[in-house]
């Protein structure tokens, strides 16, 4: 119902240009190379090269039992790790968004400052802190939460700790950004009407933060599917995750077509899952008016 020089209903040239700029950039530097990957997936490997052609052998191998199991295991891993990350991140984001006003900038800056240093160095330091006779063992022993040597490194637990560490701000940021916009008037009204704090949270705040939660899940769970570095540095490379399996095809076996076929399958599989989730939870819908 707009009258001015642009209408929010009909598309205008400037809309298309604004959307077009990133699209063109991404088409050149992402879509086109990806297209190559799809083409290569049908080719034959020449050990570090690809002979173009059409064969479905690569897909047959990629769909074999071993890789199917690896894919499912990776999905489970990412879902668990992402859930953990969100559990840790939500109270942090809630605190920043709704309990700090004058110090909000400081609060969120404190969470982001460590990220200005190199990630690998921090993971390597985390390794040293979690090793035997390291700081964590000393702290836990002093607090009587644990006795004796701490065998945390090269375990699944260490990997989860490392992943939560790595993805925490990525989960906190979208949550803060959305929780920040929930009007205090709404929660106050809920309390006025007699709801307890927990009920208010569950029935008012949580649903309104759906876009933030959906974004946080998207930004954590999906990249976790390709995670290679943390399972290697903190988990001793035990078990197999898709990130490592894919990379091994490209680098150690120099088999680009097989790696490409696996990549296409992963892409399709995850796209289907993400699409399903988004549709079921309608988590990406607008909550503004």
């Amino acid at each position, binding site marked *: 119902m*707009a009258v*001015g*020089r642009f*209408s929010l*209903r*009909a*598309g*205008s040239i400037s*809309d298309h240009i604004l*959307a077009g*700029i*990133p*699209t063109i*950039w*991404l088409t050149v530097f*992402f879509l086109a*190379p*990806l297209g*190559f*990957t799809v083409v290569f997936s049908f080719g034959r490997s020449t050990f570090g090269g*690809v002979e173009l052609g059409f064969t479905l052998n690569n897909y047959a191998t990629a769909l074999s039992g071993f890789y199917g199991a690896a894919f499912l295991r990776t999905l489970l891993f990412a879902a668990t790790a992402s859930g953990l990350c969100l559990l840790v991140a939500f*109270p*942090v984001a809630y*605190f*920043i968004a709704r*309990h700090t006003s004058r*110090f909000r900038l400081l*609060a969120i800056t*404190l*969470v982001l*400052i460590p990220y200005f*240093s*190199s990630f*690998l160095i921090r993971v*390597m*330091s*985390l390794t040293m802190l979690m090793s035997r006779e390291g*700081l964590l063992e000393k702290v836990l022993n002093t607090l009587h939460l644990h006795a004796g040597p701490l065998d945390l490194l090269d375990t699944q637990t260490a990997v989860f700790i490392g992943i939560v560490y790595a993805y925490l701000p*990525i989960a906190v*940021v*979208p949550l*803060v*950004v959305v929780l920040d*916009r929930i009007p205090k008037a709404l929660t106050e009204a809920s309390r*006025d009407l007699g709801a307890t704090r927990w009920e208010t949270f569950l029935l008012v705040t949580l649903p309104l933060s759906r*876009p933030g939660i959906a*974004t946080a899940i*998207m*930004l954590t769970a*999906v990249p976790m*599917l*390709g995670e290679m*570095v943390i399972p290697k*540095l903190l988990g001793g490379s035990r078990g197999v995750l898709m990130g490592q399996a894919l990379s091994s095809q490209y680098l150690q076996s120099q088999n680009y077509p097989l*790696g490409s076929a696996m990549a296409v399958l992963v892409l399709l599989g995850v*796209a289907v899952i*993400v699409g399903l989730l988004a549709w079921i939870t309608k988590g*990406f819908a607008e909550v*503004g*008016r």
Partner: protein
Amino acid sequence: MMVERSYRGDWRDHAIDSGLVVWYLAAVIFLFAPIIAAIVYSFNLGVVNKQTAVLTGWTWQWYPAAWHDLSLRRSVSASLVVSFWSALISIVMGTLLGYAIVRHPSSKVRRFLAGFTYMLLIVPESVIGVSLLLFFAVTRFALNTVTLVAGITPMAIAVVALVIRARVLTLDREVEEAAADLGSTRVATLWLVILPQLAPAVAVGGVMAYTFSFDNLVVSAFLTTARINTLPVYLYGSLQYGPSPAVYAAAAAVFLFTMLLLALAVLIYWITRRPAAA
């Protein structure tokens, strides 16, 4: 810290409020511990020039050693340059993309853009790295800093776009429609009405894009050249034979340097704000 006073003010609410503060502080300590440890370990003597988990001695030697290792020094400077440009491009593209995903008039376009953005995150980095390498090979693009920056941007753009999108979803449509009613163009509305409301999301998204680019390992490993090498690639390679404390010194130095600049920026900001507050 101003803790919001709850409606009833009873002990349960105080407990929850205190719990939130404790949780937040614990998270901050958790996030800071490794970087502080890294700074401490940059002074460690190590054994046969390699880093050790136990502190074997206290020495300043690794800082000049890191400076003299030209390969390390250049990789640091390359990383800073690359991540700056990548962040800049990603902020601009990501904001445009994130906004368009929500506000583009055609729902088909919106769905396409959203799917496109998700795809940027779904594709594993090793696949992107190899595809870009092969793509540049076939199209005969010479590999240099530009291709390295361009290769890192897609994922950073996706991160910024999704953060912006989450924020735009909470914006009030009626304000934009009012602006349109008053005769504003799309671009003017974006610049004068939307962007100020998006500012926190853009700022934070920008920080995330910068740190993502700075720490990018897998794609960078494929796109570095004879002339340009980045810090994460250097660090990851040092894990094979064991890193020396010099790399910790380099990382600590870069961190402190960046913090200094940030503090300077905040200082300038506070000073320039004074007249407005008066």
